[in-house]
């Protein structure tokens, strides 16, 4: 395979591939706890396939992106700029942020929306080592009875949920897998 450059790894057929990618992203956001495959993009390391695909599906010059920790590489910046034209910004201005949970840092750095416009909040793309339907118990909109999902930090996500209708929304990515956790989901540690 040719070396990864800023020009490579994009969609080969953007309208169709992005449509499939969005449907996966929408399905997991509408059904917290569900895990879907998300591929089509080969982003530069350390971005996962799923995180790279999601970024190219949702970002463009209108969305500000924060690259947290290891994801903020020169190659990563050039690649994202070439494919999306998204401005790269600090955490407090971001519409989208991507990185490991540790790198993304305290949630209070991100925009949570305003009472009149709760949609003006950040969406965090959290890179995880694993993504499994176990551990934390989820309930709320999109979930029949309960669902389970391995979450990086239950107390922080619980306090995010208490901000509803404000708060951040989350995608969790690992390899080519994606799951999501909207602010509307109630989280328990067991049940």
């Amino acid at each position, binding site marked *: 395979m040719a070396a990864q450059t800023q020009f490579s790894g994009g969609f080969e057929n953007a309208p169709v591939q992005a449509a499939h990618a969005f449907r996966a992203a929408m399905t997991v956001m509408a059904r917290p706890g569900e895990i879907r495959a998300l591929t089509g993009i080969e982003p530069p390391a350390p971005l996962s396939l799923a995180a790279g695909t999601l970024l190219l599906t949702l970002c463009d010059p209108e969305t500000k992106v924060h690259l947290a920790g290891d994801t903020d590489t020169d190659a990563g910046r050039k690649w994202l700029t070439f494919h999306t034209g998204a401005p790269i910004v600090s955490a407090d201005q971001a519409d989208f942020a991507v990185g490991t949970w540790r790198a993304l840092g305290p949630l209070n750095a991100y925009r949570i929306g305003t009472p009149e416009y709760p949609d003006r909040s950040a969406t965090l793309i959290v890179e995880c080592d694993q993504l499994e339907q176990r551990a934390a118990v989820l309930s709320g909109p999109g979930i029949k009875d309960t669902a389970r999902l391995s979450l990086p930090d239950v107390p922080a996500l619980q306090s995010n949920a208490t901000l509803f*209708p404000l708060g951040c929304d989350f995608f969790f990515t690992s390899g080519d897998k994606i799951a999501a956790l909207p602010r509307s989901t109630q989280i328990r540690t067991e049940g």
Partner: protein
Amino acid sequence: MSEYNFAYLDEQTKRMIRRAILKGLAVPGYQVPFASREMPMPYGWGTGGVQVSAATLTPDDTFKVIDQGADDTTNAVSIRKFFENTAGVATTEETEKATVIQTRHRIPEAKLREDQIIVYQVPIPEPLRFLEPRETETRKMHSLEEYGLMHVKLYEDISQHGAISTAYAYPVKVSGRYVMDPSPIPKFDNPKLEMDAIQLFGAGREQRIYAVPPHTKVVSLDFEDYPFEATKADHPCDLCGAEDSYLDEVIMDDAGNRMFVCSDTDYCRSRREAGHVGRLAEENAA
């Protein structure tokens, strides 16, 4: 039709709509503003629904469009043709075979499944608009969860008519937080708003998108002593005999003869094919 991008809209527009849909799903019932585009059809003909469908469809989908329950009315036919031409998707009139259903003013009678998506065309997304015309004020009312005015309106219905006379676009509270206009569906359809499918709402002229995820609690507003009632014409369908479906009243002649038929044409057709016979179908056969 290769002159168009897949599903008509350009990719940047679709991304903007897709981001609005995701925020709408994260805050069920909240109306997300979006930069609605001009579509090749007039406002009021489902430009919001068409934009949401365009951002949602993939080439693998099977698309169904209904207008007041019917697959064969002008609005439904033209939108179905639009996506046949610009997205090349398969289309169907059968609710069961569809993966994406765009609807104007009805929810199909058949129970929708987990793998289906229903897109509503919405004329006025703001349930409080006829009570408070100023957007700045209704936005504040939503942020403060101040919905007393809506209950006053329902109360005035009772004081004037002895019952809640609101028959369509009946306000609902979604997941215990936002009061939402379910689009002008008859209140008969309100109980179906708690469903297994993903529900997306698009208002083109008013530039709003909102959503209800599957299995979300949707409560029709009412009073303890005047509970919500999902009403329909007290009559069986004259073609298929169904007693559980929403009916249209059709005037037959100048002498006042009339018939009641299922508003959901696919439901009525599938029942007749299964051998069910209504009053007028019986007379014709005799």
